[in-house]
C-alpha cells in the first residue's frame, strides 16, 4: 500500500503541475459560442438580445449540416446575436431534450435542421409557448396549429433544375466529342429515401438535364440513410458500373463525389462545392443558403413580428444558389444557366411544366398531392395549376410534395 501512495502522490503532483501550466493559456481560449456585436453593425443592435439555438443531425463532416452551420454562424454574426450549436442530435427524444435545453438556456429561437426532428420540435414547442421553434424541411406546421412552430424550405427544385442544365450541357459535350452516343446519355443519382423531398429533387434535376439534352435518361438508387458514406460510395459505383456517365446525389456524405473522382465520372454535387476534394470531376453544386431565413427569423423576433408558418426561400431571396462552376463543366454552361434563371424569375419557365414530362405515357392535367401529412398518406390537395405542378406553393406548404414517378427515370431499389 505504501508504494501505491507513492505512485499516487507522484501522479497527483504531475497533474497539479499540468493544471498550473495550463491556467496561463486558458484565458485566451474562451470557446463559448457567443459573438460580440461589432461597432460597424450598430444599426442592428436591436437584435443583440436575441439568442438562437441550433440543432443539427450530424456535424461539419456532413455536407448538409455544414451548409446549415455556415448559414447559422454567418447570420448570427451579421446580426450580432448570441447563439448555441448542438451537433449530432439524433431524430428521437434526444432532439426534444436538446430543444428544451436550448430553451432553458434562454434561447428565443430554436432551430432544427433534419426532417425527422419535426415531431420532437413540436413537442418542445407545446411546452415553451414563448419560444419560437423553426424547423427546416418539415411538413406539419400548417396543420399543427401552433403559433410558435414554423416550417421553412426553399424552391431548391429550381436550383436542381439549373444544376441539371449544367449536367445536360456536359452530356452534350460528351456526345459531341464522341465519348458516348446519344443513347448512352444516362445519369445516375444516389438518393437517401423515397419520399417527396428526394423525388422532387431528382426529378427537377432530370428535367433540367433533359431540357438541353433530349436523349437523357436516369437511374436512381437509394441508401436508406441521410449519411452513410459507404452505402453512398457503393451506390455510386453500382450506377457507374451500370453505365451511368454522369452522377448526382441527394445524400449528405462525400461518398458519391469521391467515387466519381476515382472513376473519372463527372459529378453534380449538392449542399456545396466539392471542387477541392474532386477537382477533376466537379461540375457544379446547388444548395440552399439558409442565411436569409436565419436573418429573417432573428429580425422577426427582435422586432416582435410574426414568423411565417411556411417560409419558402427562392432564387430572388438568395436562398437558392449555385456554386462556381468546376473545371469539368462544359463550355457555355454559365450562359445557359443564366438564361434559364432569367426565365424562371420572369415566370415564363416552370420546372414542373406538365408539357415537359409524362407519367405512364400520359400528360397530367390534375394531381392530388399529400400536402397534409397523415398516417394514411391521404391525397388531399390539387396541385396542378396553370399547366404546371405548383411545388412548394406558398398557399400549400414549404416542403416539397412532388412524388410522381415520371417516364425516363428508373428506380433501381425502392426498399427504403
Amino acid at each position, binding site marked *: 500500500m505504501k508504494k501505491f501512495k507513492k505512485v*499516487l502522490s507522484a501522479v497527483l503532483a504531475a497533474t497539479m503541475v499540468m493544471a498550473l501550466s495550463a491556467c496561463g493559456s*486558458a484565458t485566451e*481560449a474562451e470557446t463559448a459560442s457567443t459573438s460580440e456585436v461589432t461597432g460597424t453593425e450598430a444599426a442592428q443592435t436591436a437584435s443583440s438580445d436575441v439568442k438562437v439555438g441550433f440543432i443539427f443531425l450530424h456535424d461539419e463532416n456532413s455536407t448538409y449540416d455544414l451548409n446549415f452551420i455556415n448559414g447559422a454562424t454567418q447570420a448570427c454574426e451579421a446580426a450580432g446575436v448570441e447563439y448555441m450549436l448542438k451537433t449530432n442530435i439524433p431524430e428521437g427524444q434526444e432532439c426534444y431534450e436538446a430543444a428544451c435545453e436550448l430553451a432553458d438556456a434562454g434561447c428565443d429561437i430554436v432551430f432544427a435542421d433534419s426532417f425527422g426532428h419535426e415531431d420532437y420540435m413540436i*413537442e418542445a414547442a407545446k411546452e415553451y409557448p414563448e419560444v419560437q421553434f423553426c424547423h427546416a424541411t418539415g411538413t406539419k406546421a400548417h396543420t399543427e396549429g401552433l403559433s410558435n412552430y414554423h416550417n421553412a424550405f426553399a424552391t431548391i427544385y429550381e436550383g436542381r433544375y439549373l444544376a441539371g442544365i449544367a449536367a445536360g450541357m456536359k452530356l452534350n459535350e460528351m456526345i459531341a466529342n464522341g465519348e458516348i452516343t446519344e443513347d448512352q446519355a444516362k445519369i445516375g443519382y444516389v438518393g437517401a429515401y*423515397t419520399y417527396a423531398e428526394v423525388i422532387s429533387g431528382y426529378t427537377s434535376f432530370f428535367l433540367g438535364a433533359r431540357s438541353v439534352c433530349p436523349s437523357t435518361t436516369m437511374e436512381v438508387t437509394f441508401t436508406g440513410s441521410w449519411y452513410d458514406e459507404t452505402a453512398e460510395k457503393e451506390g455510386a459505383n453500382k450506377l457507374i458500373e451500370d453505365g451511368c456517365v454522369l452522377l448526382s446525389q441527394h445524400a449528405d456524405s462525400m461518398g458519391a463525389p469521391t467515387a466519381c473522382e476515382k472513376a473519372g465520372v463527372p459529378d453534380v454535387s449538392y449542399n456545396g462545392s466539392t471542387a477541392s476534394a474532386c477537382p477533376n470531376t466537379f461540375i457544379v453544386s446547388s444548395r440552399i443558403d439558409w442565411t436569409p431565413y436565419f436573418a429573417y427569423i432573428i429580425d422577426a423576433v427582435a422586432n416582435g413580428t410574426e414568423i411565417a408558418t411556411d417560409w419558402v426561400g427562392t432564387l430572388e431571396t438568395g436562398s437558392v444558389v449555385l456554386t462556381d462552376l468546376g473545371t469539368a463543366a462544359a463550355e457555355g454552361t454559365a450562359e445557359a444557366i443564366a438564361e434559364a434563371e432569367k426565365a424562371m424569375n420572369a415566370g415564363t419557365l416552370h420546372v414542373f411544366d406538365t408539357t415537359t414530362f409524362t407519367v405512364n405515357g400520359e400528360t397530367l392535367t390534375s394531381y392530388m398531392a399529400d400536402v397534409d401529412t397523415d398516417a394514411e*398518406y391521404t391525397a388531399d390537395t390539387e396541385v396542378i395549376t396553370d399547366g404546371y405542378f405548383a411545388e412548394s406553393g406558398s398557399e400549400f406548404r414549404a416542403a416539397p410534395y412532388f412524388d410522381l414517378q415520371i417516364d425516363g427515370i428508373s428506380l433501381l431499389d425502392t426498399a*427504403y
Partner: protein
Amino acid sequence: MEQKIKEPRFHIVKRADIRNREAWTIRIIAILAALALCALITMVCTGDNPISIFATIFKGAFGTQRKTWITLQYVAILLIISLALTPAFKMQFWNVGGEGQVLIGGLAAAACMITLSDKLPNGVIIILMIVTSLLAGAVWGVIPALFKALWNTNETLSTLMMNYIATQLVAYFTIVWEVPKGSGKIGIINQNTNIGWLPSIGNKYLLSIIAATVVTIGMFIYLKYTKHGYEIEVVGESQNTARYVGISVEKVIIRTMLLSGAICGLAGLLLVGGINHTITTTISDGQGFTGVMVSWLAKFNPVAMIFTSLLIIFMDRGASEISTAFELNQSFADILTGIILFFIIGCEFFIRYKIVVRKDLGKENA
C-alpha cells in the same frame, strides 16, 4: 566467477484475496487517472484548464434540473437492462442478447400503439402493451435458452444472432409504418391523441426511475434471499454440483432467461411507451452491451449496479457536454468515454494481480 542470478525488476503475482477497501482504492485511483488523462487531452486540444473541463463534465450531467432528470432517466434504463442480464450472467449463461430483447419488447409496444389506437380504449391498450412487451422480451430470451438446455448450443452466438433478427424486424416494420411514405421514420406515435403513452407520474422522467427502483430491489431480494436465486448461484458455480443436489439445470436456465428477457422487454416498453414514443433500430443505443459491463463491474450486485450505471452515464453525458461546450466533434466525446472505460476495466487487472517490485532495486552496480 560469481554467477549472478537475474531477478526481474518487477513481476506480477496473483492476489490471494483483496480487501474491499483496497479494491475500491484501486478503482478510485483508476478513475482519477482517467480523468487526469482526459483533462490532459482536452487541454492539448482546447487549451482550456482542467478545472473548467471537470466543471463542464459535471454540468453536462447535473447542470440544470432538466439535465439531472435526464441523467437519472438514462441511468434508470441502463440499470434495468443491466439488472435483466445479471441473473443470466450469474449462472454463467452469457446473454449478450439484451439489445435484441429490448428492441423486440419495444416493437411489441409500438405495434400495440399503432395498430390498436382506434380500436380499444387507452387503458386496455396500455395493459396490452405491458403484457406483450414483457412476453416478447421473454420469448426472445428463452429461445436461446431452450437451445442451450436441449442441445447445449453456444448461447453467446445464439443470443447475439437474435439481436440481428430483432434489428431487422424493427427495420422492416419501420417501413410498414413510416410517415410520410418513403421517409424511413415513424415519428412520434399518436402525437395528438397520446394513446398508448405511459402515464407520467409527477414528471415525465419519474416513471422509468420508479420502475428501475422496483426492479433493483426485486432483483436484490430475488438473487439473495429466494430459492431461485440460490439455484442460480449453484448452477453458476458448477452444473455438476447442481445436478448432484437435485437441481434441474435445464429448468433453471429456461426460467432465468424468461425473467432476463422479460425485464429487457420492460426496458423496451419504457423506451417506446414512456420516453421516445416511437421505435427505431437504434433505440436501445447499444445499452444491451453496455449493460454487460455495468453488471460485471458491479460484480453482479444489484445495489452496486446503481453506482456503476451512474458512473457510465455520468461520464458519457459529461463527455458529450465537453464536445458541445468546446465546439469539438462528437468523436471527441467518444475518445474521452473510451479512455475512461479503458481505465475502469483495466484497473480490474490490478485488483486481481499485484506488481511486486524487486526489493534491492537501485542497489546493483550500474
